[in-house]
């Protein structure tokens, strides 16, 4: 009951919940959101995805470091000539809660989802067939291509290549990427031939997904309603 088992409902309810939380500006609702998602994650997995939580994009760091000083308001503390405002610190806390909550929600819903099932769910939700197949093809071949990259890098290391900030390094990486592109097109040719050999006619056979269970509907709707209530609280 913690999260919908059906991936279609997971996609729709996660998207709706995160969108509903987007306009939230109050610390109360934002903290509630983070607390709620934390509780869900701990109940379902008993551990937190620390690596995901601690991953910060460069601009997020910049944002969190500068907002307290750039938003005008009542001074909370000073560092040298810089005055941090209450409003700015509040804003950072709200943003941090919303960003972390959303990261946790995505991790809870999708980190262990099988890509093939995700593709089927996206197709069932009406995404164009070609888009779904590009997504599935990317997932399918990423492992192979990354292994090929690793082999080429190993080969370079065997020949005493050491990456540094110089022209030789950049050119070597450029040649390596070019080589990979060349091999990828040759591989695509073989894949296409193999698919047609086995009677591929523009469609993969697949049965329609069964309708989601009642419990899934309940869990999905519950999440969206909770997010809606938090938004309502924030706006009143």
């Amino acid at each position, binding site marked *: 009951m913690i999260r919908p088992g059906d991936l279609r409902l997971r996609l729709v309810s996660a*998207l709706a919940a995160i969108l509903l939380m987007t306009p939230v500006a109050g610390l109360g609702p934002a903290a509630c959101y983070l607390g709620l998602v934390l509780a869900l994650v701990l109940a379902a997995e008993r551990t937190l995805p620390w690596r995901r939580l601690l*991953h910060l994009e460069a601009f997020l760091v910049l944002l969190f470091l500068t907002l307290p000083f750039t938003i005008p308001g009542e001074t909370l503390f000073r560092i040298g000539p810089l005055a941090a405002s209450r409003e700015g610190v509040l804003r950072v806390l709200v943003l941090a809660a919303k960003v972390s909550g*959303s990261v946790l929600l*995505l991790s809870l819903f999708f980190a262990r989802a099988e*890509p093939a099932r995700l593709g089927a769910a996206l197709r069932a939700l009406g995404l164009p067939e070609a*888009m779904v197949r590009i997504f599935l093809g990317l997932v399918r071949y990423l492992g192979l*291509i990354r292994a090929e990259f690793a082999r080429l890098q190993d080969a370079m290391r065997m020949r005493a290549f050491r990456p540094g900030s110089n022209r030789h390094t950049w050119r070597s990486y450029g040649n390596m990427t070019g080589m990979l592109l*060349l091999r990828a097109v040759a591989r695509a040719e073989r894949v296409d031939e193999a698919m047609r050999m086995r009677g591929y006619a523009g469609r993969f056979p697949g049965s329609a997904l069964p309708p989601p269970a009642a419990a899934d509907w309940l869990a999905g709707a519950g999440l969206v309603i909770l997010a809606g209530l938090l938004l309502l609280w924030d706006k009143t």
Partner: protein
Amino acid sequence: MAHIQDGLLSLPVLAGGGALAAAGIGLGLRQIEDRAIPRIAILAAVFFSASLVSIPVGPSSVHLLLSTLMGLVLGPGIFPAVAAALALQAVMFGFGGLTTLGVNTVNIALPGYLVALAIGGYVRGAAAPVRAALAGGLGAAAAVLATGGLVALSLWLSSSDYVPVARVLLATYLPLALGEAVVCAAVIGFLKRAAPELLLPQTGAVAEAEA
């Protein structure tokens, strides 16, 4: 680096990015012939893997976007390719976000697509690989800076409080632009010598390498 997370942008920016991305993906999917789909997917996997390699630039290191190269090799197929890669990163690895998928796709793919349109003719026609590489390098730097500008614009349009950060943000794109220019030039130089037909959009039924 250009992966904006959920919870930062405002609804109108998310909606605008989503609409633009949908238009770009529609354009790309219309151009991709059915039999080219595996090729686009496998090439997308190459660009994704290449962007995971960290390249030393000065005292720091960067992960490349390779958007100009993608624009040259994939044509309008860059939109679905970038969208697929970002979707995978968002749901499987936790970089970027679900609601920001459209904005992030546009921020990365649009400059690559436009720059490739602008320099494509020159790069493909140039007799000397060095000239093609030079044009590609300049284009790649321009595309990266444009991506930085679009990320800053997305933040700025979302809240005026983000403006000071948006300004600083562009400076952090300078090392990336440098690394991107040099590596992209090297790739284009390599392809010009080894497989010039790869610099045409690979969206047709038969690989250009064969034709």
